[in-house]
C-alpha cells in the first residue's frame, strides 16, 4: 500500500500504569500526526512531553494503549513496516565488544542486507561519517561524538526511506554537528524523510521544514516552520524623543521595550512602521535602527508550553 505519508498516527495513546498503585501517566495522549514523505520533520517538546515515547510507539518498542501508527501505510507493529527505517536512539548503548565495522555489519545484517552488500557499503558509510580510519577499532575507545556518528552510519547503511533520529547531535562538537547536518542534507536531497526528535531549537529551526511541539503528551502546535515563525514585523529603535511622541508611538506599536538607552517599538505592518517614522522625522528625532523581525522558534516554543 502506497501512502503519501511516511508517518501517520491516529489518536495514538500510551498510558503507563503502575503495577500496584493503579496510578496512570498519560505519556502520549491521542496524538494524530501526519508526516509527509520527503520532508524534514522536527518533534519538539519540554522534558517529559512524550517525545521519546512517541518515537518508541512508532518503532513498536512500546505498545499503544489506544490508536494506531502507520509507517508508509503499514501498521507499525509489523516487523516488515520497520524495514525502510533507520533509527538512531537517544542514550544508545552500543555493545563495546564491537569494532566500528563489526557494529555496522551486525545491524546491517539484521536489516536483511546480504554479506556482499555489507562488505561494499561498510567502508563507504564509515567514510561518510568520517570514521574510515576507525573501522577496526573497538567502539569502547570511541568518543561520544564518534559513537553518535557511527550510530548515524548504522541508521543509514541499509538506505532507509525514513530516518528517525533521537537527539542526533547530542554530545557532538560543532564540527561534528556540521558534518551530521551535511550528511542529512545529502539524504534529504535523495528524498529520504527525516524525523528529528530534539531539544536544540536553533538546530531544528535551521534544518526542519515542519515542526510539531508536544506538551503533556499532546500536540500543542504543528505546522510548517515558515508558518510557525511568521510572527513578522519591524523593530524601530529610537534614542530620544519627546515624551508625548513616545507615548503616541507606544499606543501604535504592538510592544515596546527599553534597552541600553534605546526604546524598541515593535510594529506588525509596514504601514504602521512608516507612520511611526513619519511622526519621528516630523519632530526631527533620530532613528537608531529599523530591523525586520520574525518570531524565533524559541519564542513560539516558550509561548506554546507556557500556555
Amino acid at each position, binding site marked *: 500500500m502506497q501512502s503519501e505519508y511516511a508517518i501517520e498516527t491516529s489518536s495514538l495513546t500510551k498510558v503507563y500504569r503502575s503495577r500496584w498503585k493503579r496510578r496512570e501517566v498519560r505519556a502520549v495522549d491521542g496524538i494524530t500526526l501526519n508526516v509527509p514523505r520527503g520532508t524534514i520533520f522536527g518533534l519538539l517538546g519540554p522534558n517529559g512531553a512524550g517525545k521519546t515515547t512517541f518515537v*518508541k510507539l512508532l518503532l513498536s518498542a512500546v505498545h499503544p494503549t489506544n490508536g494506531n501508527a502507520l509507517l508508509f501505510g503499514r501498521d507499525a507493529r509489523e516487523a516488515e513496516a520497520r524495514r525502510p527505517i533507520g533509527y538512531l536512539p537517544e542514550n544508545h548503548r552500543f*555493545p563495546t*565488544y564491537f569494532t566500528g565495522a563489526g557494529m555496522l555489519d551486525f545491524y546491517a545484517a539484521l536489516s536483511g542486507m546480504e554479506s556482499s552488500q555489507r562488505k561494499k557499503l561498510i567502508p563507504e558509510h564509515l567514510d561518510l561519517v568520517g570514521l574510515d580510519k576507525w573501522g577496526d577499532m573497538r567502539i569502547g575507545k570511541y568518543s561520544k561524538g564518534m559513537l553518535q556518528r557511527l550510530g548515524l552510519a548504522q541508521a543509514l547503511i541499509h538506505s532507509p526511506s525514513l530516518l528517525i533520529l533521537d537527539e542526533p547531535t547530542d554530545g557532538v562538537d560543532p564540527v561534528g554537528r556540521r558534518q551530521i547536518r551535511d550528511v542529512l542534507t545529502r539524504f534529504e536531497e535523495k528524498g529520504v524523510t527525516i524525523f528529528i526528535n530534539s531539544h536544540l531549537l536553533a538546530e531544528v529551526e535551521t534544518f526542519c521544514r515542519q515542526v510539531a511541539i508536544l506538551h503533556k503528551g499532546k500536540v500543542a502546535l504543528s505546522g510548517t516552520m515558515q508558518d510557525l515563525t511568521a510572527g513578522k514585523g519591524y523593530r524601530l529603535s529610537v534614542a530620544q524623543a519627546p515624551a508625548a511622541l513616545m507615548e503616541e508611538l507606544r499606543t501604535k506599536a504592538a510592544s515596546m521595550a527599553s534597552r541600553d538607552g534605546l526604546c524598541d517599538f515593535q510594529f506588525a505592518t509596514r504601514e504602521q512602521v512608516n507612520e511611526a517614522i513619519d511622526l519621528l522625522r516630523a519632530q526631527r528625532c533620530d532613528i537608531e535602527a529599523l530591523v525586520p523581525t520574525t518570531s524565533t522558534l524559541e519564542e513560539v516554543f516558550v509561548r506554546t508550553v507556557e500556555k
Partner: protein
Amino acid sequence: MKDLWTASLALIRDTFREAFARKIFWGLFGLSVLMILFFLFLLKIDLVEGGLAAISLFGRTANPATDVDRLVRGVYGGIATFLYTWGMAIAVFASAGLIPSVLEPGRIELLLSKPVSRTHILLGRYVGNVLVVACNIVFLVLGVWTILGAKTGIWSKTFLISIATTVFAFAVLLSVVVFIGVLFESTALSTMVAVALMIMSPILAQTSVMLRLLSSEWSRQIWRTLYYALPKVYDLGKMTLDAIQSRTFEGYMPIWTSALFGAVVLAGALAIFVRRDF
C-alpha cells in the same frame, strides 16, 4: 526467507561475539583444555594394568577381556557424570548474563527497530547461547573420548551420548534463565533459580522412597507434581550413565517431560518478551 536466515545468523554470531568478549567462551574453553590435559596426564598411568591389579588385590582372578571392558566403561561413566554435573553448572553460571545484557536500555530499542520480530530476536539469542555451550561440550567430550580410547583401545560410542544429554539439559535450564531474565532482567536471580532446579532434581528423583515416607495424600500429590513438572536433570544424568555402562533404563519419560518443561517456560518467556514495553 533469506532475510530471516541472514538475521538469525547475525543474532547467533552476536551471541558468540559477546561470549568471546566477556571471556565466557574462552573461560569454558580453557576449563575444557585443562580437563583434557588432566586426562593426557592420566596416560602416564597404566589405567588398564592398574585396574586389573586392583581387582586382583581383592583376591579375585581378573578376566582381562570382560573386566577391562567393565572397568573402562566405569571410568567413562564416572567422567560423563562429572562432566554432566559440573560442566552444566559452570555453563549456567557463565552464560546467564547473556540474556539480560541484550535487554539493556539503549540496546534493546535499536534491536527492536530492525525488521526482525521479537520472537526471532529472543530465539536467536537462545540458540546462540546453546551453541556457545555446545561447542565447548563437543570439544571437551571428544577430547576426553579420544584420549581414553587411545589409551584403552576401547572406543565407547555411548560415551558420546553425554554430548547430547548435557546440551539438552543445559538447553532446558537455559529456558529458565531466559524466562527469569526477561521477567526481572537479573543475571543473579536467573542463575539462582537454574541452580536451585539442578539441586532439587536429585532430591525429587527419590520419588518412590518419598512417597512411602510422606504421610498425607496431598503432600504425596505435591511431590509427584513437582517431580513430573520440573526438569529431570538428575534422571537425565542417570540415563546417560546407564547408557554408557550398557544398563537398561526405565523409559524416556525424563526426556520428554524435561523437553515439555523447557518448551513451556521458553514459550512463557517469549510471550512476556513480545508484550513488554521497552
